[in-house]
């Protein structure tokens, strides 16, 4: 049972490149990075390269961010739609991330369909399907989307 679009909601999310496609909070749309921590109701996403506009705003607000330091944002699972990039190899290649998100812009995927890039698949998952403790998610029997 490899990591496929069908098994992703039950598989390990930590380390996967992710993009927030839709969210109740408009400011969270477009967050890109790697999942570093999962809790029952949130995903923590480490921004790989902070977007220019974002950096700007932070400088304006005079906030905690230092130059070149990565930021970790916490995004609630409920009310968000996530797009994960799955590579054929072990997950979490930061190199593939850049191309992944660019391709994803042109052709967004519908769950559980995956757009085939060069051995990169994009899976769009509604955050409410991921709502459970990280260790419990694996246990739901079957891969039915109704669980």
């Amino acid at each position: 049972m490899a990591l496929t679009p069908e098994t992703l909601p039950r598989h390990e999310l930590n380390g996967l490149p992710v993009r927030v496609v839709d969210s109740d909070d408009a400011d969270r749309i477009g967050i890109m990075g790697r999942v570093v921590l999962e809790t029952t109701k949130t995903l923590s996403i480490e921004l790989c390269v902070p977007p220019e506009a974002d950096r700007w705003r932070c400088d304006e607000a005079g906030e905690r961010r230092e130059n070149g330091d990565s930021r970790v944002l916490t995004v609630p699972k409920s009310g968000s739609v996530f797009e994960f990039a799955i590579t054929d190899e072990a997950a979490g290649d930061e190199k593939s991330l850049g191309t992944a998100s660019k391709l994803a812009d042109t052709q967004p995927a519908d769950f559980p369909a995956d757009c085939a890039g060069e051995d990169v698949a994009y899976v769009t998952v509604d955050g409410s399907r991921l709502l459970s403790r990280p260790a419990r998610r694996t246990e739901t029997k079957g891969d039915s989307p109704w669980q």
Partner: protein
Amino acid sequence: MDIAAERIDRLHDLARAAAADGEDERAKHYVRLARRVAERNRLSLPRTFKRFTCDACDAYLRPGVNARVRLQDGHVVITCDCGHHARYPYE
């Protein structure tokens, strides 16, 4: 290989990478999560995972950095920075 075993493998790699980057707390989270997944799914952890994690504080051990490895008569002693010893035999 089912999903749980694969998750453990993946978490092992993530923990190792996090420890190498100096993200110790994050590595501990991954180790704890892997243990929890194994426990819930009644799987035994891989031997390398057992040898490279601390039973007491869940740290991912990197010999020479946060762990001391000493050979005694017939067994290896690994001491974590937290002071916990783990022993295993060698031939």
